[in-house]
């Protein structure tokens, strides 16, 4: 039996397939302006990748901001439960999750059975989300993949005092004008975003071991800044960005 999970985020759409409790394939594409089309496309691509046909799929669960748009899914579930289930599937010891996506960041605590105990999400503000980092990367003319390497080379991280994305961007621009080193500005951006995310984790009194998920988990500079803030190490798996889709596929197998 094969089960599928589709996670339509604000920036990327992810799909995962599981078969007999093991991960078969995952795929990521940009969401674009049409979440349903993104869902269809990412689903078809992951099927092709795993060389299985649509008829082999027993059930589909959709999640993410576009979860309601995926009209071919059997059920829509929230990212919270999908990330919880995904993390528990990958590593059953996990008791906490920090997920930083494009539009949302959240901290989730799990009990020993992988069930969600509590969660906290960012408020109506982009600071501390992937979008914040993306805006800053644009201002600095650095691609998202390069951010981590740049910030690890910082010798004296800049201080970004503003908590608002728009104002932080003008602050960064004035730092560029002031000829501050790009590495230091980027490290400062990560520290500023990490401070916001860490508040969520502290709010729910997160317990170790903690897994970091979401697209931002791939940014080594951001994970390092978060670890510094939190005072403990984070576990980042190979499928951090697809974790929600994996959880959705696991939940599909329980329908």
């Amino acid at each position, binding site marked *: 039996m094969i089960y599928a999970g589709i996670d339509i985020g604000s920036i990327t759409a992810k799909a995962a397939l599981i078969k007999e409790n093991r991960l078969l394939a995952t795929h990521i594409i940009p969401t674009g302006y049409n979440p349903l089309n993104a869902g269809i496309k990412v689903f078809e691509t992951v099927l092709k990748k795993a060389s299985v046909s649509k008829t082999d799929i027993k059930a589909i669960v959709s999640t993410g*901001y576009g979860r309601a748009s995926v009209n071919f899914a059997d059920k829509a579930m*929230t990212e919270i*439960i999908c990330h919880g289930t995904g993390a528990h599937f990958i590593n059953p010891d996990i008791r906490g999750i920090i997920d930083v996506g494009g539009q949302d960041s959240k901290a989730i605590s799990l009990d020993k059975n992988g*069930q969600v105990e*509590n*969660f906290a999400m960012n408020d109506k503000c982009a600071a501390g989300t992937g979008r914040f980092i993306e805006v800053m990367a644009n201002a600095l003319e650095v691609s998202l993949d390069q951010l981590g390497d740049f910030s690890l080379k910082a010798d004296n991280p800049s201080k970004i005092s503003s908590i608002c994305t728009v104002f932080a961007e003008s602050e960064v621009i004035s730092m560029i004008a002031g000829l501050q080193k790009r590495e230091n500005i980027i490290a400062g951006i990560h520290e500023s975003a990490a401070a916001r995310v860490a508040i969520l984790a502290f709010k729910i009194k997160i317990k170790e071991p903690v897994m970091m998920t979401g697209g931002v988990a791939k940014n080594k500079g951001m994970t390092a800044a978060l670890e510094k803030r939190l005072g403990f190490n984070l576990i980042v798996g190979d499928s951090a960005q697809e974790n929600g889709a994996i959880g959705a596929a696991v939940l599909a197998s329980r329908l």
Partner: protein
Amino acid sequence: MSDKLSYKRKIKCAKKMRDIMTTYYLDAMTAEQNGKQVAWITSGGPVEPLVAMDIIPVYPENHGAMIGASKMGEDLCIKAENMGYSPDLCSYARTDISCSIVKGGPIGGLPKPDMLICCNNICGTVLKWYEVQARFYNVPLFILDTPVCHTRYSPEIAKYVRAQINEYIAFLEMVTKKKFNYEKMAKVGRLAFEGQMLWKKVLNTTAHKPSPMSAFDAFFFLALIVTLRGTQVAIDFYKELIEEMDQRIKDSISSVPNEKHRLLWDNLPVWYQLKWLSTKFSDHNACLVADTYTSAWCSALKYIDENNFLDSIAEAYTRIYLNIGVDQMAEQVLDMIKFYDVNGLVMHSNRSCKPYSFGQMDIMEIIRKKADIPVLMIEADMVDPRNFSQSQVETRIDAFMEIVKLRSS
């Protein structure tokens, strides 16, 4: 759900209440022609002396709720901001101030006041808000200052507030140029007491499983105990409403078709999203059976002595929900959780209402620890829809309901 069933679920008394409120507003609008005076009063203010003096009380906050429910808040808030008021100012204050000038909103603005009665037991914003309106309308303003009772109602507070009740009466005598009628006051006091007892009874009917009405209904039916407290009209209406609720319980008519989860709401309603929120929770088979907001109009009943009304209201009006310490607020929430047997708490962090929203994080912690139920915090505003993000709130509610369901399975 078939149309027939949906019709059956409708509360019949709703039409009657709409008629009563229409008559009330018509009376207020035509007060001047009928030789009557109008007083604007804050929602937590002692209205009974006004009723005893035959002055028509009008509530800018009730008007604000109407503006919010008619989705006319954004425009009026922007108008106030154009006048120079901060977007951080309470949206009731903003809409009231701009409405006085543009005569907008669902009823074209409130009738001009002859006096203003401001009691700061609900917040500090009302002081400046009423000062603004006193200057605008050039009418006398009475301020009843009720110190916050963080831990207790001290003898000093008692003396201070009681003395102001006398000043309040002297103020009314001065503005109306009439002697205060203490006999009528005693009668109005008894009616106010009875009205609140009945309101409490209305709210208590939701302890039944499944609940015959929801907090969304309470938000609506609240209007009478606020605006017509101290009148026979309110008493007769609530008696009828209780009868209807008792009949619904007998006939097994519930507010939510398939009630499986019972929730408690904290803070003011999100007036412009009532329908969406009520459908959202109902789709999860969840009923918001009670709330801390509508119960505020009967939670200080224990301090009222119906036979010694004027002496006792000093304490009753000072010790209302928003004027006590966070520990005591949490105790009240815990009592409600137990009484209504709820399995989740939904807190509205209301951008407008600082005294209601400040302290919610502490209350949340206390509830999680002592009641061990899931708690959800959603961010919004009671009237200004610019502070509400539907998809964000939806994800939070869905995730919260997943946890509530997991816990109860």
